[in-house]
């Protein structure tokens, strides 16, 4: 009898001790995911939340913020070890805090994830790595490209075939002659969107961006040549191009007032095929972004914070959001560039987007990610702005940029990024 009492008492004690743990285990998991407020990535995430919660039982809170605020929140959260966010959206701009991200290699291997990505997008650069370990999974991919008006090219009996910027400029010359007297410019770019023209420089420049000692530097001779070549492009653009922002630049091409446009495809593709917004429906195609440099990439990655309390649940969200099926769906619905190969090889899509997908895939296969911090980037594009204004020469610009760069310490993650992409001085 006594034994029964002791046994019952023990059972009671054990069950009392276990109950809080069991309650915790049964408590639904909750994760916080961040996205940029863009009306695209964030909307796509919002759309997925109910299905994800239903399928996994994991609750998701989305935090959406404009680019600047998003980066500020991430950096502050990670450097203070707060851990408010489980899944974070970001790019190389937050490379200064890459060391605070969770390596994802084990998850990737365990779930055999990532097989369908465009190889270049899945590699270091567009995909974010730290100390040789994957920390980011790309969920969007856009590459700088050149759009051209097929009707104008036909009228001028030209082909949009170029390997280098010199080839492209030769075509611009021919276009200028052909379009003389017409209100159509051979080229348009949003030179007034001050951070954008740097992408053209990077396409023309094939030197290093980080020197042997791990400091920001440029091959002076190559950089001067590229800058002067870039300046020579201004004459092919419409008047007032130095004040053109994204909208103004895109509008010129969509109105059929420019034969070519250098820019981000995802900012214009959906509108270009919409008769309500475009006069070039069925009259445009995507061409190669010339070399010898590289097309700049925009590849948003999803990271898991090292301070996340639910990394497994966070990984489930990443898989649910970034997969080939969604890549295709989000490209069509929200204009998000797909990082998945299958989207570009989809026979059904190729029927309607044959003028876009092959060219875009080619450019995506050559992209590189900038190993610059935003401060380094800003030093470059602001002085470049003064150069475009004719206030300083290319040589003076480089002196000024270098003087500002000398004050910037290159984060380890970006040195690794430069090295992995062949952008470091040999």
């Amino acid at each position, binding site marked *: 009898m006594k034994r029964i009492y002791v046994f019952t008492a023990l059972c009671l004690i054990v069950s009392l001790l276990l109950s809080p743990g069991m309650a915790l285990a049964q408590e639904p998991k909750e994760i916080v995911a961040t996205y940029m407020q863009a009306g695209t990535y964030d909307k796509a995430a919002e759309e997925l939340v109910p299905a994800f919660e239903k399928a996994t039982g994991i609750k998701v809170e989305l935090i959406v913020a404009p680019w*600047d605020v998003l*980066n*500020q929140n991430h*950096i*502050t959260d990670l*450097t*203070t*070890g707060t851990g408010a966010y489980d899944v974070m959206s970001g790019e190389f701009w937050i490379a*200064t*805090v890459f060391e605070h991200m969770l390596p994802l290699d084990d998850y990737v291997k365990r779930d055999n994830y990532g097989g369908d990505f465009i190889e270049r997008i899945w590699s270091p650069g567009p995909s974010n790595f730290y100390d040789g370990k994957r920390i980011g999974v790309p969920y969007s991919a856009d590459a700088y490209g050149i759009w051209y008006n097929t009707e104008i090219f036909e009228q001028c009996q030209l082909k949009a075939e170029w390997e280098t910027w010199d080839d492209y400029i030769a075509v611009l010359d021919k276009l200028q002659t052909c379009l003389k007297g017409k209100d159509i410019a051979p080229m348009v770019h949003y*030179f*007034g969107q*001050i*951070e954008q023209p740097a992408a053209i420089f990077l396409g023309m420049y094939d030197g290093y961006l980080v020197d042997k000692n791990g400091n920001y530097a440029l091959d002076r001779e190559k950089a001067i040549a590229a800058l002067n070549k870039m300046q020579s492009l201004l004459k092919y653009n*419409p*008047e*007032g*191009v*130095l*004040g*053109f*922002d994204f*909208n*103004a630049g895109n*509008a*010129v091409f969509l109105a059929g007032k420019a034969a070519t446009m250098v820019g981000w495809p995802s900012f214009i593709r959906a509108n270009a095929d919409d008769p309500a917004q475009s006069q070039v429906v069925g009259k445009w195609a995507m061409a190669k972004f010339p070399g010898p440099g590289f097309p700049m990439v925009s590849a948003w990655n999803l990271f898991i914070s090292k301070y996340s309390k639910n990394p497994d649940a966070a990984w489930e969200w990443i898989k649910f959001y970034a997969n080939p099926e969604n890549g295709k769906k989000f490209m069509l619905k929200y204009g998000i560039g797909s990082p998945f190969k299958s989207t570009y090889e989809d026979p059904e899509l190729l029927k309607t987007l044959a003028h876009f997908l092959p060219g875009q895939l080619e450019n995506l296969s050559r992209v590189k990610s900038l190993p610059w*911090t*935003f*401060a380094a980037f*800003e030093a470059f594009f*602001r*002085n*470049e*702005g*003064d*150069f*475009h*204004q004719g*206030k300083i020469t290319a040589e003076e610009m480089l002196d*000024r940029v270098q*003087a*500002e760069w000398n*004050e*910037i*310490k290159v*984060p380890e993650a970006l040195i690794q990024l430069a090295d992995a992409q062949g952008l470091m001085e040999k």
Partner: protein
Amino acid sequence: MSTVMITQKRRRRLRHDWPWMAAFVVPAALLVVAVQFYPLLFSAYLSTQDWTLTSSQSSEGFVGLQNFAKVLQNDVFQRAVRNSALITGTAVVLEMIIGTALAYLAAGSSRIIRAVRTLLILPLVIAPVAAGTLWRMMLNSQMGLTNYLLSFLGIQGPDWLGNADWALVSVIIVDVWMTTPFVLLVVLAGVSSIPDELHESAALDGASRWKSFLYIDVPLMAPLLLLTFLFRMLESLLSLDSIYTLTLGGPGYATFTMTYYIYTLGLRSFNLGMAAAASWLFMSFATVALLVVFWLQRRWQTAQ
């Protein structure tokens, strides 16, 4: 006798109530002191530290006044100071002149005048971010409304945002557009408070409307005008949002102001030490400007 008694009674009551009054006031006072002074003291401490948040979670050491020296020697900072001085100096003077003129034109109580007044103060209630975006579209040299309207007058509008000099002008225009209504409202209140008798007697003595304005209105409203000038100057110096959306501080560094510089250092580069030093320098410049205005005010009062 009765007065003495009342005073004594009050004193006794005050002595009795004092602990209660202190209990209510002291926490609030402490809170104000903490909220006002703690950030200031902390930023003073930060300004002497080598601390970039992205490199280290804590300060990497005391550097004395090195951050101040670095900021002062920085080319970009010097340009930002020049831009801030130019934008604020020009915009505030224009706002004072236009606002005062409009206040006189919009004085009165007829229905039309009241409607015009309402229209005139509308820009004041538009968020600076929205105003910047709106003007960015309007000042687009190719498709903007401004150049379109100018073309009716046979004028080919400039490249407002693409040209460094015109971009500065654009920032000034937007600042003037947004905040002239504030000057208008304040001056209007000042004008309304001047007794009509003064103007009537001046008119009887043969003074013109202009002379009456110069010798009656201006002296009476001088303290008010100086205060308005002061407010506007500080606000204009602190302005960031409209410039951010209008020009992004560009082209190049053309419209890069001191607040933009501090924002970039603090919230983009996370260089807390240098951002704090730049903030203190900014505060020093603003204080000097304030002292000049106060000095002018005192001189004016002495001269009166």
